[in-house]
């Protein structure tokens, strides 16, 4: 009756699909491994720069004597490194692996992809060096100077070619929702980057048109690049671990197309109150509120898939990270929609509240989902298990507690800051002093997150260099599993 069901119980089919997965993972080992491994290096560097920038906000003399480490360079370097060095690098690796798995096709040209990984990392290295030596383009989210862009775009061309090849070699029939998301993301990101870099840096358009293009790009980098990769990964890993199909294909499809349709308009809500035609801003406010449609749809789809299986987050690191991330996605999107309402935007705009919101999306959602994905992918790529459940626990709790604290402190400080900034009588210095305790607490919370990243990096390196024979047993949060359900 159900072909999928029959396949699951036919020992020959099971053995065949295992063989196939083995071939896929072997072919992906080098390129995906390099993308993921190097992303962890950028994660650490990005965290270090984040802490430096955070300290400078309450202690301006910190590292101020070296021009390479002034706030105006460290802060954009942090943003670009975590966006292009960490999230994008990990995202490409994770996306390629999931795409290859779902297309039932091994990566064919893993040499060109390994070259792509090398180019991508060179692009990040050159770009970071460019920002720190003072060559930033001064366009937010696009600070990497022009001489870094060719590396990134050529590298991405290889990634796009391979992803088209994978889709072409897929068996006929149903296309799973993660394939939609990842394939779309692999095309959206390079077109966004190419267009924005061209119109803002290479051949700048007239000044009044630049901010809309800038925010069109910056917001879409989150919504049409990190979000689809993160959602694609969550859609793949949740059913994979709990062993249950996705609740509804229709909801998946509505979620995908409404995201694609509404997200591209969202960026202009960064310009509320700016000198732009009212309709442009209003269209963006409407599209931002319409984001409730994809977000509620995806949340319902995930929830009904998970329901009855939440207990498994006690054991499976992957599932716990991914579920944490998926919940943050819902929260971040709801919050983002409300922040686009003109009256509320008047309070939160230009405050630390916005920074907290950006981290809820980029960290709470994307980063946590990527952590979960890496915990799932690496044992299959390397055919080794994670070496220490202690380190995974440290990683999760440092990042989760650190991030929640980060979010609460900065949002609270941001609201107070926003209310005071709307009082004409309050002197500016008084508002700066008001935010001080929250900025200091942010440094503490950020350091805790970085501790988690260090545990993760140690865990990763240990896994790569260890020669211990594989136990064949997954490394879970807890030693005792209630039933022999292999969940990671």
């Amino acid at each position, binding site marked *: 009756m159900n072909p*999928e069901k029959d396949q699951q119980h036919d020992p020959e089919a099971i053995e065949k*699909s*295992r*063989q196939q*997965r*083995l*071939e896929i993972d*072997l*072919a992906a080992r080098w390129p995906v491994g390099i993308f993921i491994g190097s992303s962890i290096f950028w994660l650490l560097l990005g965290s270090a720069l984040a802490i430096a920038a955070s300290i400078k906000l309450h202690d301006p003399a910190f590292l101020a004597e070296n021009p390479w480490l002034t706030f105006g360079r460290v802060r954009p370097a942090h943003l670009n490194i975590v966006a292009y060095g960490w999230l994008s690098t990990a995202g490409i690796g994770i996306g390629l692996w999931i795409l290859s*798995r779902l297309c*039932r096709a091994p990566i064919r040209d893993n040499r060109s992809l390994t070259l792509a990984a090398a180019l991508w990392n060179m692009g990040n290295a050159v770009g970071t060096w460019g920002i720190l030596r003072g060559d930033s383009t001064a366009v937010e989210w696009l600070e990497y100077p022009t001489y870094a862009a060719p590396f990134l775009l050529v590298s991405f061309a290889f990634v796009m070619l391979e992803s088209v090849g994978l889709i072409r070699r897929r068996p006929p029939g*149903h296309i*799973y929702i993660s394939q939609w998301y990842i394939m779309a993301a692999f095309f959206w990101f390079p077109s966004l980057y190419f267009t924005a870099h061209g119109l803002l840096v290479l051949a700048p358009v007239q000044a009044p048109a630049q901010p809309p293009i800038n925010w069109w790009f910056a917001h879409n980098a989150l919504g049409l690049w990190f979000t689809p990769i993160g959602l694609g990964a969550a*859609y*793949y890993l949740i*059913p*994979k671990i709990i*062993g249950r*199909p*996705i*609740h*509804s*294909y*229709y909801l*998946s499809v*509505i979620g995908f197309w409404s995201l694609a349709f509404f997200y591209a308009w969202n960026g202009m809500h960064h310009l509320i*109150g*700016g*000198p*732009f*035609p*009212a*309709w442009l*801003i*209003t*269209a963006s*406010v*409407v599209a931002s*509120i*319409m984001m*409730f*449609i994809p977000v*509620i*749809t995806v949340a319902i789809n995930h929830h009904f898939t998970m329901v009855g299986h939440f207990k498994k987050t006690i054991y499976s690191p992957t599932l716990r990270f991914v579920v944490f991330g998926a919940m943050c996605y819902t929260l971040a999107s709801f919050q983002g929609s409300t922040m686009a309402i003109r009256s509320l935007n008047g309070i939160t705009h230009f405050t630390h509240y916005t920074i907290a919101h950006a981290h809820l999306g980029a960290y709470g959602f994307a980063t946590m989902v990527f952590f979960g994905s890496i915990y799932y992918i690496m*044992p*299959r790529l390397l*055919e080794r*298990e994670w070496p220490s459940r202690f380190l995974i626990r440290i990683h999760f709790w440092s990042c989760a507690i650190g991030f929640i604290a980060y979010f609460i402190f900065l949002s609270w400080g941001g609201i107070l800051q926003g209310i005071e900034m709307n009082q*004409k*009588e309050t*002197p*500016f*210095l008084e508002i700066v002093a008001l935010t001080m305790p929250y900025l200091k607490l942010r440094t503490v919370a950020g350091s805790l997150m970085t501790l988690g990243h260090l545990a993760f990096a140690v865990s990763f390196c240990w896994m790569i260099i260890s020669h211990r*024979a594989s*136990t*064949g*047993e*997954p490394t879970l949060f807890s030693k005792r599993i209630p039933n022999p359900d*292999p969940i*990671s």
Partner: protein
Amino acid sequence: MKPGNEPGEDFDTRKVHGAIIREKSEPSEKFRAAPWWLKHGIYAPLAMWGIWYLIVASGGFRWDEYSEGYFRTFVPETTEETTPAPVSNDPKALIAEGETVYTAVCAACHQATGTGLPGAFPPLAGSDWVNGTEEKIILPVLHGLVGEIVVNGETWNGAMPAQGATLDDRKVAAVLSYIRSSWGNSAPPVTPESVTTLREKFKDHAPWTAADLEAALAE
């Protein structure tokens, strides 16, 4: 790169490939319809609100209708020519006008409450310059002021840019009248006529220094 045991390998294949063997089959999707309450309770109301807001808050989709007029379609359009309000030399009107100029031009450095910024910009509130003769503040506004100055016994060393090119005589008089009557200051207002006179007398003068200014005023 063939999977499985190669001849001569002695490790346990099932252990090495443990992760792949134990994982569940690739995910699939059920085909359940979207629930009715999602369609009628969430999608439809959101879409209706979106269309309504697009219509009322888009300033008629004109390119020259900016954020301030985004609710314009609710306001009946007036076709009659609005005659400009008569220019009065009433000090109250002048001071009210001056507040707008102050917020736009001066507040960035001297701050909204005229306190200035310690070490960078001298205060206007309670300043001996502001409450002194009107010439001593009209001229720096018109042509700028550079170098060391002493305000309330404290020495400052900065540069105030000239505003004479961007502010007309009435605006200079307005903003100075506002400053001289706000934040505890209580000097008489400045009239546009005295600004006109000084502008003529020191036409296109370079930025003043404190010594320059004293010399010119002593004449």
